[in-house]
């Protein structure tokens, strides 16, 4: 059955798509007809497993690249491969992200560099190459995953919050610069979502976070994926430079 989201024939690249929100996004975009290219950084095995899962469920042959989205040369090589094979890119989801909590006074240089490289620098690198492919068709949607912490801040997350706030600045600027090419750039700011990120929380912290969600439930990766699907599709064709909260009415 053809999806009303009309992603058939479109090529999508989702960074950090082997787990959590990225995997939910990759699956949903595939389900609605897009050819999704996967990316992971830690495990070739997991990447291969995800390819197999997409093949089994949707009967598609997916490309998958193992590399660090914050590594300039690796990003360049990936887009070279996308260009060679597909000659186009319609959707980029800058999803790869890491979270390391550190209180002020206990922030290591490596923590800052690693977090900004993955959460922020990677977005600029990918956005730049993606835009060059998208501009050929005068069409494209770039979706950057920020965080509610990038908007309102949180204790212990000076580094993470800074890296995610920067994503909003990148999104707003790129949206203005690329609008004339009909390339839309939007951000999603998830709240409290059930991914590996929350595994380190104590039961007390978990409850405290949950209490701050007005809808009284933790978000699912699929909740974020649904927002990605909307922003990737033509249902959002006149929407650019927006930061969409997916947080169940969370107040931090």
């Amino acid at each position, binding site marked *: 059955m053809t999806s009303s989201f009309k992603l058939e024939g479109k090529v999508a690249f989702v960074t950090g798509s082997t787990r959590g929100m990225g995997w939910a996004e990759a699956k949903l975009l595939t389900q609605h007809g897009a050819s999704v290219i996967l990316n992971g950084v830690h495990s070739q095995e997991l990447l291969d497993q995800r390819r197999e899962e997409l093949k089994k469920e949707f009967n598609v042959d997916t490309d998958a690249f193992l590399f660090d989205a914050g590594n300039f040369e690796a990003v360049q090589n990936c887009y070279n491969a996308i260009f*060679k094979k597909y000659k186009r890119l319609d959707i980029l989801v800058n999803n790869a992200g890491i979270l390391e909590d550190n209180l002020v006074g206990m922030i290591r240089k490596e923590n800052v560099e690693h977090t900004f490289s993955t959460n922020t620098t990677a977005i600029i690198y990918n956005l730049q190459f993606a835009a*060059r492919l998208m501009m050929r068709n005068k069409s494209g949607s770039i979706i950057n995953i920020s965080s509610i912490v990038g908007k309102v801040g949180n204790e212990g997350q000076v580094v993470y919050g800074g890296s995610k706030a920067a994503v909003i600045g990148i999104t707003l600027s790129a949206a203005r610069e690329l609008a004339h090419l009909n390339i839309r750039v939007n951000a999603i700011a998830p709240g409290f979502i059930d991914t590996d990120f929350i595994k380190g929380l104590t039961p007390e912290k978990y409850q405290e976070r949950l209490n701050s969600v007005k809808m009284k439930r933790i978000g699912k990766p699929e909740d974020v994926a649904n927002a990605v699907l909307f922003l990737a599709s033509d249902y959002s064709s006149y929407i650019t430079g927006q930061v969409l909260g997916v947080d169940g009415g969370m107040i931090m």
Partner: protein
Amino acid sequence: MDNIEKLKKAFSEALELSPEEIQDDLSYGNKSWDSIAHLSLVASIENEFDIMLGSDDVIDMSSFKKAKEILQKHDFKF
């Protein structure tokens, strides 16, 4: 079509210039080659030669002569 003809074609299509206007001294900032046209020119060259240029190449490509040198780095003969 040899490489020089392919490159001239890419330039002439992207910058809307006649082939005679495309000489070694044609450079960024001249005629219709402005910042807006630059990325269209890059895309046109990439399509013609079936490669994706690196970011440094995109930034360094400041003249027709320089474009030839960059393509030579990618093993195209001129």
